[in-house]
């Protein structure tokens, strides 16, 4: 019997046994129970397509030679086995779990309060916490009170460094990753009055001080240089409307030098192709426009490398060749998919990965059942980083991106160096393509500056008006 027939048969048996999606919420009263059961009856079993794909995935594994013994094989095999148990459970239950919005929201809300001493490991990255929590809550459609927003903004101002940048906490020197997340947090939860208090002149001087002769940037004064720094700098400069020819001279060329023989992009020239750096490099180049991107990147090699990152059993992405799946690459790699939507010639298929397989990984294997939040993979604790980039992976899988040519024209007239990222538009992808339940649809996002659609345009427009360009 083929795998396919076997899965059909299993499904048939399950349906005879009346296995249905289990109720997700706690039943508190008799009346609610009836309602709950009624809803339950209405819910279908896992869709045929979804079931087929998931059962097919559980039969796949990475073709690594069975007879060889090495660290890579050991790690890959045990990860596959662990994830398979999650998929098998879903198949047995006859249901792929829903995105557990309320648990994830609770997990995120926890970060708005007082955090245990072990969080000292984020002492030097505090703006990230503000960005992740408020961003994810917004994308989940959850309200954050004005009071909390005011307090977060007030704290962000204590992190403005004397060097002109934003530091990871009060008294720390400026760091472009802290400044990146800080600026996106400002855009998300700040008001125009807050924005007016940002010292853009000092920020610009700081960014220029971080610039290296070869066109790259340092993370902080005296710090390391890599494609991550370039993306952070370009984001800060573009969104604050302080991006100049002088700032970006040689930068696109330098990014181009970081593309490897594998097709992905590394931290700096000759470094190994890596998911996180590839996102940074691509998004960074796209801030500078479609033409700049295509001039410096071998697109076909890049697409091949990205397609290669999706793992057959897991459905999620690995960050490098022969490395393990990790939920965060659902965005660092998955987030590159919108870029193909807008870079490949019109009429060309732009689906190069399986959105549905990725969705299975995120929903079945990455949600922490106990405390909420998303994680790298089963066996790992959930954290805010993986929650944000897993959730963004879900959103990307649900969206199709395009460039609104009129919007692009409008921005090109007023901000010709960096108009492109402001013209992204997303439409809902048909849930049958990604094979997810409509109830799991999350908000829309800008793929270059990962905040809710519209947020960054409002922020940019504020500066364009202030600078008399709009």
């Amino acid at each position, binding site marked *: 019997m083929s795998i396919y027939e076997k899965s059909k048969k299993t499904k048939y048996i399950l349906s005879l046994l009346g296995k249905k999606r289990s109720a997700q919420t706690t039943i508190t009263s008799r009346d609610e129970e009836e309602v709950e059961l009624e809803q339950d009856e209405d819910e279908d079993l896992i869709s045929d397509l979804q079931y087929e794909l998931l059962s097919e995935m559980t039969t796949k594994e990475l073709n690594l030679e069975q007879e060889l013994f090495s660290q890579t094989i050991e790690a890959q095999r045990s990860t596959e086995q662990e994830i398979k148990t999650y998929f098998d459970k879903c198949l047995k239950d006859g249901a792929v779990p829903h995105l557990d919005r309320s648990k994830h929201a609770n997990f995120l809300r926890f*970060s708005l*309060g007082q955090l*245990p001493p072990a969080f000292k490991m984020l002492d030097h990255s505090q703006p990230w916490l503000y960005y992740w929590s408020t961003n994810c809550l917004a994308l989940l459609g959850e309200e954050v009170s004005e009071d909390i927003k005011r307090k977060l903004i007030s704290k962000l101002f204590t992190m403005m460094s004397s060097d002109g940048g934003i530091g990871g906490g*009060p*008294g720390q020197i400026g760091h472009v990753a802290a400044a990146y997340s800080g600026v996106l947090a400002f855009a998300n939860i700040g008001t125009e009055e807050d924005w007016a208090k940002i010292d853009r002149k000092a920020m610009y001087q700081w960014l220029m001080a971080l610039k290296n002769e070869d066109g790259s940037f340092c993370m902080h*004064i005296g710090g390391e240089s890599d494609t991550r720094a370039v993306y952070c700098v370009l984001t800060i400069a573009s969104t604050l409307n302080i991006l100049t020819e002088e700032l970006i001279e040689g930068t696109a060329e330098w990014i181009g030098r970081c593309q490897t023989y594998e097709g992905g992009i590394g931290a700096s020239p*000759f470094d190994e192709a890596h998911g996180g750096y590839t996102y940074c490099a691509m998004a960074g180049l796209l801030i500078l426009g479609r033409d700049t991107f295509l001039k410096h990147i071998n697109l076909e090699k890049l697409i091949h490398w990205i397609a290669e990152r999706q793992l057959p059993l897991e459905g999620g992405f690995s960050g490098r060749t022969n490395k393990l799946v990790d939920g965060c690459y659902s965005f660092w790699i998955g987030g590159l998919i919108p870029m193909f939507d807008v870079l490949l010639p019109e009429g060309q298929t732009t689906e190069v*990965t399986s959105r549905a397989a990725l969705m299975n990984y995120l929903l079945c294997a990455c949600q922490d059942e106990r405390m909420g939040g998303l994680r790298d993979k089963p066996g790992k604790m959930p954290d805010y980083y993986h929650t944000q980039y897993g959730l963004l992976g879900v959103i990307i899988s649900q969206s199709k991106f395009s460039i609104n040519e009129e919007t692009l024209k409008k921005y090109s007239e007023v901000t010709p160096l960096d108009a492109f990222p402001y013209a992204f538009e997303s439409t809902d992808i048909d849930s049958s393509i990604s094979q997810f339940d409509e109830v799991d649809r999350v908000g829309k996002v800008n793929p270059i500056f990962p905040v809710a659609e519209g947020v960054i345009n409002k922020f940019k427009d504020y500066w364009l008006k202030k600078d008399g360009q709009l």
Partner: protein
Amino acid sequence: MDQFDYSDITPLPLVEPNNPVTTILYSDEYKNIFGHLAALLAAKEYSERAYALTNAAIEQNAAHYTVWQYRFKIVVALGKDLEKELDWLEEIALDNVKNYQIWNYRQLLIKKLELKSMKRELPLLETMLDEDSKNYHVWGYRKWVVSYCGDYSNELAFVNKLIKADVYNNSAWSHRYFAVVNLSQISDFDFDSEVQYVKENINLAPNNYSSWNYLIGIHEYFKKDLTDLEDFVNTHTEDMLDTEVEGVISKPGLELLVKILTLKGEKEKAAKGLDLLASKYDTIRVNYWNYQKSLLSKA
């Protein structure tokens, strides 16, 4: 903090007073160390007591980039023995495998010392990569220090050893590419024997993308014809296009075969290979192979 007197220093608060939102509940020890440190940094004090404090701070949180930057300024201002500083750093490195700051700090020290020798770097890097053979920061540092010293002579032997231990170690293959490209610019490079080495490793693990990607990579870099590989590829994909093959096959081999057939203008056979990848051997990438097929029909 008992070694020196800090009583004249008023520690700076680590958190905004009366603002409990997203607030880390630091231990008293942490607050004490970092509060004093922030005050000393703000006063631009470069002293022995500040230096001692950075030790304690790094012990608490080795990823705190501000401390590292401050420490470097102190070390330079006090004219500290930089070799001793490297010794200290080695101990810290072994306890903090996944850390950016250590390697950046090491770069700063090596540059300050103008130490253009791999002698003390080799054993350290070997130990670090032994611990975690795909550590991105350590490999990045290794590339930097090799380039800085202009000494590529140890690299091939080193990656050979790592590839022997784990032929799937892509970091080692990437490093090999870096070494080979640079070596070929300073001395004669035997392309054929390099290809032979890769082929042997592919024969050992025919489904290993690392070695196949590398094989294609060096062909492209040295502007060699990929079609030269047709016979070799065929040994791994024998008859796949014509017959039903069961058992282990080389997926990356089939991909390269398609590429070669495309280059040779044998579109029909290439399309068949793409169909097989899409429908049988690599179904998760069905979209990608269909995309390739659409390109093929346009070519």
